[in-house]
C-alpha cells in the first residue's frame, strides 16, 4: 500500500508514455521523404548496436543510422530539456507564463552562440555551447533584475522578458550585420528558427548528457519545487535552502536551454505549453510533473520534427515554425485559463 498509491498513477501514464516515446522515435526514423520500412530500421539498429549482420541497402543504412536516428534523438533530448526548463522556471519564479523563450533566456543563448560562431572566440560545438550558456545566464540575470526592480509582479516579469528578448535579438542581428558574410548570415537565420537537419552523433554526446544531468537535478529538487508553491518565504520555513536550490535549478534550466539552442536554434513554446498540458494530466506535484513533462516534451518534439519534414513535400519547414504553430494557440489557451490570476 505504501508504494501502491504513488506507483499506480505512474503505471497509468508512465509506462504508456515510455512506450509512446519509443514509438515516436521509431516513427521519427521511418517517416520522411523516403519512407523506410520498420524492419529495415530495426535491422540497421541491430547491425550498428551489436553487429547483427542483417543484409541492408547501405544507402538506407546510412540514412537511418547517420541521419534520421541522431536527428530524432536530438529532437527528443531537446524537447525534454526545454520542457524541463519550463517546469523549473515556472516553479522558481512562481509564474505560469515563465518559459526559457518568453524570459529571453533563449534569445540570450542565441546571442552567445552567434557571437562565438562569427567572432570565432571559441569555435567548436563546446565553445558555441559555452557561449550560449554565458549568453543565457546573462539574459536571465538581466531579466530577473529588471522584473524585480519594477515590482516583481507577473506582468512585470513578462514585460521584462520581452525587453530582454528584444535586446538580445537586436544584439544578435547587430553581430550578424557587422561581421557575418552573406552566406553565414543565411545559415544563421535558418538555424535561429530552429533546425534539426545538422544533427549528428557528435551532437548527441552533448545533448543527452546535459538533459540527463538536468533531469536528475530536477528529480532531486521535486520536493523543493513543490514547497515553492506558496512562495519563497513559505519554502524557507518548510526547510528549503532557498538560495541554493534556486541557483542549482536555474543553472540546470539555463544549461539545458543553452545546449539546446546551440544545437538546434531557438525553439518557442515547448517549455510553456508542455508543462501546462502535463499539469492537466498528472497534476501539479513535481514528482510526477517532472518525468511527465520530460517524456511529453520529447514526444512532442519528435512529432514536430516529423511534421516539419512532411508538411510541405520536398521541403523542410524549420521545426521552430511547427512548434510555434502548435504552441501559440496553446499559449492562448493558458492565457484564457489563467485570466483571473493576471
Amino acid at each position, binding site marked *: 500500500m505504501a508504494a501502491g498509491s504513488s506507483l499506480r498513477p505512474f503505471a497509468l501514464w508512465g509506462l504508456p508514455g515510455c512506450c509512446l516515446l519509443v514509438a515516436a522515435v521509431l516513427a521519427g526514423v521511418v517517416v520522411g521523404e523516403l519512407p523506410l520500412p520498420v524492419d529495415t530500421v530495426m535491422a540497421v539498429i541491430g547491425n550498428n548496436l551489436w553487429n547483427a549482420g542483417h543484409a541492408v541497402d547501405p544507402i538506407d543504412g546510412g540514412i537511418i543510422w547517420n541521419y534520421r536516428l541522431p536527428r530524432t534523438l536530438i529532437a527528443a533530448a531537446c524537447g525534454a530539456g526545454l520542457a524541463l526548463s519550463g517546469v523549473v522556471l515556472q516553479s522558481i519564479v512562481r509564474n505560469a507564463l515563465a518559459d526559457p523563450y518568453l524570459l529571453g533566456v533563449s534569445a540570450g543563448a542565441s546571442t552567445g552562440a552567434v557571437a562565438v560562431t562569427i567572432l570565432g572566440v571559441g569555435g567548436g560545438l563546446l565553445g558555441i555551447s559555452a557561449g550560449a550558456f554565458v549568453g543565457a545566464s546573462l539574459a536571465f540575470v538581466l531579466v530577473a533584475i529588471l522584473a524585480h526592480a519594477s515590482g516583481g509582479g507577473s506582468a512585470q516579469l513578462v514585460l521584462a522578458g520581452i525587453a530582454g528578448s528584444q535586446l538580445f535579438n537586436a544584439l544578435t542581428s547587430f553581430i550578424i550585420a557587422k561581421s557575418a558574410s552573406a552566406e553565414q548570415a543565411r545559415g544563421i537565420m535558418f538555424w535561429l528558427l530552429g533546425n534539426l537537419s545538422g544533427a549528428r552523433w557528435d551532437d548527441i554526446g552533448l545533448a543527452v548528457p546535459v538533459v540527463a544531468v538536468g533531469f536528475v537535478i530536477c528529480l*532531486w529538487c521535486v520536493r523543493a519545487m513543490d514547497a515553492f508553491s*506558496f512562495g519563497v518565504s513559505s519554502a524557507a520555513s518548510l*526547510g528549503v535552502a532557498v538560495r541554493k536550490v534556486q541557483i542549482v535549478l536555474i543553472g540546470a534550466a539555463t544549461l539545458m536551454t543553452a545546449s539546446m539552442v546551440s544545437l538546434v536554434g531557438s525553439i518557442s513554446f515547448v517549455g510553456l505549453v508542455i508543462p501546462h498540458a502535463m499539469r492537466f494530466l498528472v497534476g501539479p506535484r513535481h514528482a510526477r510533473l517532472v518525468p511527465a513533462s520530460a517524456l511529453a516534451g520529447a514526444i512532442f518534439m519528435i512529432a514536430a520534427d516529423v511534421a516539419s519534414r512532411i508538411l510541405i513535400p520536398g521541403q523542410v519547414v524549420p521545426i521552430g515554425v511547427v512548434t510555434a504553430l502548435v504552441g501559440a494557440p496553446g499559449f492562448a489557451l493558458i492565457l484564457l485559463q*489563467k485570466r483571473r490570476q493576471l
Partner: protein
Amino acid sequence: MRVVANDLGWSAGTKSIVNGVSMEINAGETFGLIGPNGSGKSTLLKLIAGLLPRARGSVLLDGKPAHELSRREIARRMAFVEQHAETSEALTVRDVVELGRTPWLSSLAPFGQEDRSIVQNALHTVGMNSMAENRWDTLSGGERQRVQIARALAQRPRLLLLDEPTNHLDIHHQLALLRLIGHLPVTVIVAVHDLNQAMGCDRLAIMERGEMVACGPPGEVLTPERLASVFRVNATPLRDPADNATVFRFHHMEISAS
C-alpha cells in the same frame, strides 16, 4: 522548546519596523502577541522564524543559535502559519498538508506510510479529512486557514508560530483551535487580535509601533488603562459566571485630533 530572542530588530529601508525586542519563552508555553494593526506582530514572528534578510538580534532555540542551524534543521523544530498564503498551483488539501513533511523527507527517506498517517492525523485534527481531495483554491477562507494549520502540525514542530490563526474561522473552529493550541505539548507563539482570546494565553506581549511595551500574564498586562493607551478603546472588564473568567467589552473612544 525554549525560545530566547535577544534584541530583535528589522528596518525597511530607513524606517524601523521592529526594534529591540527581547523575550524568553518557556517550553510548552503559549505566548500571545497583541497590538494594533501595523505594530509589528507579523514582522516579529518572521524575525523569530529567521525569514527576513538584514535582521538584527539573535534567536536561541533550546539554547542553540538559530543562525547556526540549517533551514531544514530549523523547519524540523518550528512551523510557521503566516497571515496570508496564496498559490496559483492546483493543489489539493492533502497536497498542501503533505508539504509539511518536506523537512523530514529526502531522496533516501521518501514519503512513506508514517508520513501518510501523520498527514491524515493532522487533517483529522482540524476537521478537514472529509475534504482532503478538494482543491485548495475552491476552499473558503476559514477552511484554508485550517489546512495551513494542519500543514504546520504535519511538520511535527516543537515550536509553532501562528499569525492570526483564528482569522476567518467560525466561532466553533476558533474555540477548537484555541483548545488545540492550549493542549499541544509544544511551545506556541501566536499573534491575535481578539483580546478575549488573548486572555487564554499563558503570557502576553503587547507590541506598539515596533516595540514591546509590556510582557506578562494576561491579567497583569491587559489593564483598562493600557488598553486605552495602546488600542484606543475604553474597556470594561466583566466576569463570566460560567467559569468566573474575566472578559472585556469595548467601547469606542473619541480621540481628539493629534
